[in-house]
């Protein structure tokens, strides 16, 4: 499947499996990062479907763990697990819950949900790969709301100091968090570009829901010769691709009704 089709299919499945689960999901954040995840998994990430087979491979960590449904949808469409397994999403005693649970055999690298910890582990993996002389890459998706957490800055400093050139962070700048607009919650004037730059990261500022721009950024990262960690700051739309959900924080975490599902399932 080409990446454009993968994005459409994975978006549809977020809605479908989210609705069919009968529960509430973090749709907004899952949709805002979906284009990045699809380009990454379809064109760049080099790893076996069973991650436990080897540690000499690329790594993906979903630091904004609450967007797990987006990750599950991509993993399903990339055949890391089958439909029966995906159907257990939000069913009692499943491992497919609102936040990823480490499950190497199903392609899930780490347990997340506590914000800021994924980027921290990513720096450790990247450093360990460099120490071992391996040229594999570590990719990590961080949310802008997540950047309220102090540990994020500890990790940024660490990555810069140890010149973790094999680390690529996608900052999903969708402008919203649980309680509303990030400007209202904790406004830092969207100075992420300056912050990353001054800490010593290589920056690519793009439209984060544009497949071509994402592809170009990931290519630049994979070809870069300098010794800096790399961040793609992606300006995204929360709820991207589902009209009613776009920039509507009611869909940060919500349940899709049957009538609403009938309206949007033809996307």
């Amino acid at each position, binding site marked *: 499947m080409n990446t454009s089709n993968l994005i459409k299919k994975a978006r549809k499945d977020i809605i479908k499996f989210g609705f069919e689960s009968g529960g509430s999901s973090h749709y907004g954040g899952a949709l805002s990062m979906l284009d990045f995840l699809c380009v990454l998994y379809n064109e760049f990430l080099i790893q076996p479907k069973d991650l436990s087979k080897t540690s000499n491979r690329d790594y993906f960590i979903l630091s904004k763990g609450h967007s797990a449904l987006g990750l599950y949808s991509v993993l399903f469409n990339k055949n890391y697990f089958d439909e029966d397994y995906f159907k257990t999403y939000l069913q009692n005693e499943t491992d497919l819950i609102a936040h990823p649970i480490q499950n190497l055999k199903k392609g899930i690298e780490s347990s997340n949900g506590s914000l800021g910890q994924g*980027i921290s*582990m990513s720096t450790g993996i990247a*450093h360990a790969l460099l120490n071992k002389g391996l040229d594999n890459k570590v990719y990590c998706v961080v949310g802008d709301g997540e950047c309220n957490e102090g540990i994020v800055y500890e*990790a940024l400093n660490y990555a810069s100091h140890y010149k973790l050139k094999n680390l690529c962070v996608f900052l999903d700048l969708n402008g919203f968090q649980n309680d509303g607009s990030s400007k209202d919650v904790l406004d830092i004037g969207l100075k992420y570009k300056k912050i990353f730059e001054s800490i010593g990261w290589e920056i690519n500022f793009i439209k984060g829901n544009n497949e071509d721009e994402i592809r170009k950024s990931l290519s630049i990262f994979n070809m870069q010769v300098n010794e800096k960690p790399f961040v793609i700051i992606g300006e995204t739309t929360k709820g991207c691709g589902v009209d009613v959900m776009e920039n509507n924080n009611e869909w940060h975490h919500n349940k899709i009704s049957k009538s609403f599902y009938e309206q949007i399932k033809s996307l």
Partner: protein
Amino acid sequence: MNYEISKRQAKLWSRIGARASFGQAILELANTDDNMIAISADLGRSSGFGTLVAKHPNKFINAGIAEQNMIGVSAGFSKLGYNVYATSFAPFLSYRASEMIRMNLSYMKLPVNIVGLASGLALGFLGNSHFGLEDISIFRTFPDINIFSPADCSEIFKIVELTSKLREPSYIRLTGGVNFPIVYEEDYDIKLGKFNSVFSSGDDVHIYATGSMVYHCKEAAKLLADVGINCKVFNVHTIRPFDSNSFSQNCSKSPKLVVTAEEHFISGGLGSLVLEELHKLKRLNLSLLKIGLPNKYLQSGEYEFLLKKYELDSMSIFNSIKNELNISV
């Protein structure tokens, strides 16, 4: 690892103290284990890593004063197969980086060893911000983390060796300062989750001691034997997994008094654990004396002074047990 426990060596280690001995043990491990890596949050020198850094610069990583991220970094290294030892003062691990330890070591079971330096009262004049008073209590509630608490410097070597082979999530709690008293002068066997008896004159009193308290309880037991009170002293070097089998067998001997001793708040630590075990065994009829620190913030002072002030030295322990028996017998 290559080391020898002898009278001479034990004396030398005792003189340099718990942290320098730990650094020596890690150096010995680094000499033989290619996958070993030591990480610290700007406390490399306080971890005794001077020689390690000089001899094996690529086996030490300074994470800076950022304990939370240090745990994430350690977790990342462990995913690549490294045998990680991450150090900081006990409170900065157990409280500040608590949730990172919960997610990475406990929830994900990543085999990282974390080392709480100078726990208990060892940092004397640095005060409550630096004392390790609640660390056992916190880690005891996190599933799947082993808790080690070496009784002397020789046992620090033993536990570094044990954990390096075990490769499980573990917390190593270092108590005691320089001139850390000697419990072991010759080589002995140590097993995960198995008490070691360090003194035995009879079954009037069973004393369960951990870390720095093992030596003081052993000395107290000698004094008690002199006045006709016969004791056994068990070194609880592994607080988790706890040696429930041996404990149950010991209880069947119906001692007049069970004692726990720890350089830790009286609530939540070894004493609370033993109380829970008694409850499980339906042996709450046994008298229990919990020796530890009162549940409040403490005065600062020289380490030895503080042990006496808070009645954790041999003589105070002797008196506490004697008094308890007078009341309860």
